[in-house]
């Protein structure tokens, strides 16, 4: 089974994040890393490939540093990498990103399965998987917290607030996975050394036949007009216990709908 995993290089969610002057995410001033939510998709792809035969290709769209996300996926065990690198892509919105990803996947070949995380940890829009499936004409099976390959298809479990759904799909398909699906592995020394010998291709827009006028900030369907830093958290309310502390606490929790 040939699997393509789409991954994103994001600013470290633990660090102080900021926006640049054009209201796009500042990717220079903070450390970046492979989006942690994408590690679950990589792990799931590796498990499927290890259980049978197949190849895992990891695909990213992003600036120079995004090669680090591909590298980590290869260290974890993916077989090869593709990095779409083109200055014209900077500031692209979700529709443009999904276009670039779709064309890249077509160029890679016709995978049996496209896997993604449930969202990026920076934009957290969760829409690229659906858009990508639409562009590729694939069934979209999103938010899988369990995934099994059965015969010519896949079955997933999707956990909702009030019910759990079991969904089947034929292959090829696109599946996005949640952080409940597995425990991603850490790269071993063996994996780190092996990754150095794995092929990574870098393609520009022209390699994909995508026109620069279809992507980038200038061609985005939406624009961020303004960003404001969240105000510092205000001091909490101190409840003085005058014999009725328990009641006051319960009232507070009820007012906040915690109980």
């Amino acid at each position: 089974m040939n699997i393509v995993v789409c991954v994103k290089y994001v600013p470290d969610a633990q660090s102080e994040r900021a926006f640049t002057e054009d209201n796009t995410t500042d990717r220079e001033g903070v450390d970046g890393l492979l989006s942690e939510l994408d590690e679950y998709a990589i792990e799931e792809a590796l498990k499927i490939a290890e259980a049978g035969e197949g190849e895992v290709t990891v695909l990213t769209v992003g600036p120079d540093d995004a090669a680090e996300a591909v590298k980590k996926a290869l260290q974890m065990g993916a077989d090869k990498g593709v990095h779409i690198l083109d200055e014209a892509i900077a500031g692209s919105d979700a529709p443009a990103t999904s276009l670039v990803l779709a064309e890249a996947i077509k160029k890679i070949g016709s995978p049996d399965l496209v896997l993604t995380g449930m969202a990026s940890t920076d934009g957290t829009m969760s829409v690229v998987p659906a858009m990508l499936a639409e562009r590729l004409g694939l069934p979209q099976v999103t938010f899988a917290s369990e995934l099994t390959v059965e015969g010519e298809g896949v079955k997933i479990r999707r956990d909702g607030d009030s019910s759990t759904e079991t969904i089947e799909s034929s292959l090829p398909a696109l599946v996005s996975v949640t952080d409940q699906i597995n425990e991603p592995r850490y790269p071993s020394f063996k994996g780190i050394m092996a990754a150095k010998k794995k092929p990574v291709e870098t393609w520009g827009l022209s390699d994909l036949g995508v026109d620069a006028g279809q992507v980038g900030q200038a061609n985005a369907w939406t624009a961020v007009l303004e960003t404001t830093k969240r105000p510092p958290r205000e001091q909490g309310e101190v409840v003085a216990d005058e014999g009725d502390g328990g009641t006051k606490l319960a009232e507070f929790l009820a007012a906040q709908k915690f109980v």
Partner: protein
Amino acid sequence: MFELSQDHEDFRKAVRDFAASEIEPHVAQWDKEKHFPTELVGRMGELGLFGLVVPEEYGGSAEVADGTVQSDFTALCVAIEELGYVDQSIGITLSAGVGLGINPILSFGDEEQKQTYLPDLVAGRALAGFGLTEPEAGSDAGGTRTKAVRDGDDWVINGAKSFITNSGTDITSVVTVTAKTSEGEDGRPQISAIMVPSGTDGFTVEPPYDKLGWHISDTHGLTFEDCRVPVGNLLGEEGSGFRQFLKTLDDGRIAISALALGLTRRMLDLATDYASTREAFGRPIGANQGVAFQVSDLAVMAETSRVLTYKAAWLKDEHDRGRRSMKDVKHAAAIAKLYTSEAAVSATRIATQIFGGNGFMEEYPVARFYRDAKILEIGEGTSEVQRMVIARHLGLPS
């Protein structure tokens, strides 16, 4: 030399992530309950930590079938440093698991012994101990009293061992013990190393010690009463046990340096953070030179420890590649072990002082590190022994 390779740094990142996610959230509880996390050992095995100096044929990543070297002793030191940064007990579990458990079997075992024990030890499915120290033979290992007498096809072992790491866990498969097997022509005892599988009749693992620190690490005394093992359990040549153990000690000293380095770096980070945020007399305490200078001293200790540890590790790897003498390694290992362990003890004292009353509370990790530091000056050769080794290297009269 002044920078580790990108591969080592990538590996450091992986171990750091592992330690932050898999160890840090639980470690205060484990320490309090003196709980040995067997399951974590398995996960460390999955990450390949026990196989960093073991060839691929036994499940490791040090050397692959075509002879290319992959991971090395330096990589092991990186792993011990990063685990030790989060918790010293977990760091020593790896250090002893590899240096004392795996190494003697790998270095001196025959093919059958290696095939029997190494794959499980490397995978983290099993742990092995090394029994050298005795109630009356510590630094003076030549004073070993444990005896092994040949009886037919068996060795019959009698004696006791002290402070044996990883000897009593649920997954301990074997303990290698040193014992007098005969006397040489010069009348000096011949010491041999013999593998005793867990559960052998006459082999008793005593209850765990009540220790000042290293609460998560598994340490027991061992007793042997007419304990019989097949003659095939002899590890290496009869009478070579003493030489063998000396060889394992040099690696162990560098590994302890890496552990001490992890501790000192942690003290630096904790103290820097605390001195920058804790306020007294209307400003952060780090704005006072009395505190700032102490934090600076921690930075010097951490950096010096780093340079000494990785120089010694590099020499050891170069020795394994046939490019350096063992004499160079021994000297560098003794210097690194002496400095980094004494610096670590000082670093915990300084960091605890900066934390003030909070530093004395178990709620803050400095207290745990304060308890854990002292053993670094004692285990794998005391500071005094390191000074003896250094003096000998300098050619001082003995």
